[in-house]
């Protein structure tokens, strides 16, 4: 694990997390959350946990985002905070 890659990706992860919980549109939250999951998967691949990385890429960034978008379309995009 090169500490430069680690630090840069970790910073991206934290930015994505803050943006996902502070943006005022739930569809934007869904997409930012998918980006967060993919960055997390990258971090695990760098750490050598390849099995965890591809499970996260398929399940976290794939299925979760699909669930999320489906739920947003069945409810509303509006959020107050």
């Amino acid at each position: 694990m090169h500490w430069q890659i680690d630090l840069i990706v970790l910073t991206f992860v934290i930015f994505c997390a803050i943006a996902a919980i502070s943006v005022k549109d739930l569809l934007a939250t869904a997409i930012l959350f998918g980006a967060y999951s993919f960055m997390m998967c990258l971090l695990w691949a760098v750490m050598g946990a390849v099995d965890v990385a591809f499970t996260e890429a398929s399940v976290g960034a794939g299925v979760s985002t699909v669930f999320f978008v489906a739920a947003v379309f069945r409810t509303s995009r509006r959020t107050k905070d």
Partner: protein
Amino acid sequence: MTEILSLIVAKYNYWLYVILMMIGLYAMIAKNNLIKKLVGMNIFQTAIILFYVSIGYKKDATIPIIEGAHGGHGASGAAIHAADYINPLPHVLMLTAIVVSVATFGVAMALAVRVYQRYQTLEEDELRMRLSEK
């Protein structure tokens, strides 16, 4: 003073995991929208998983797949040193945790959809108002 500072800098990844965990906790407690609370829960879970996976990391080690075990005939004969491979135990445990977290997320989303169909809102304060009207 300098040794405390060097300890903080050397363990920078643990501090960032704690920050990530606290972002998730804040979203779970302070956000008003139910979906935002779910996102906070998932951030919290992935921060814990990240912490566990990082514990198993070793310097100058490769991924936990034995080299040359699948080629050739029979055993390769060379001794296997555990120090050459990253510890796979936290990976396996956290693989289960990822699957559980996705199942939790799916069920929680389904409950949020049902709440919206019944009360036409996902905001916690409006929900409390509708509940107290009845």
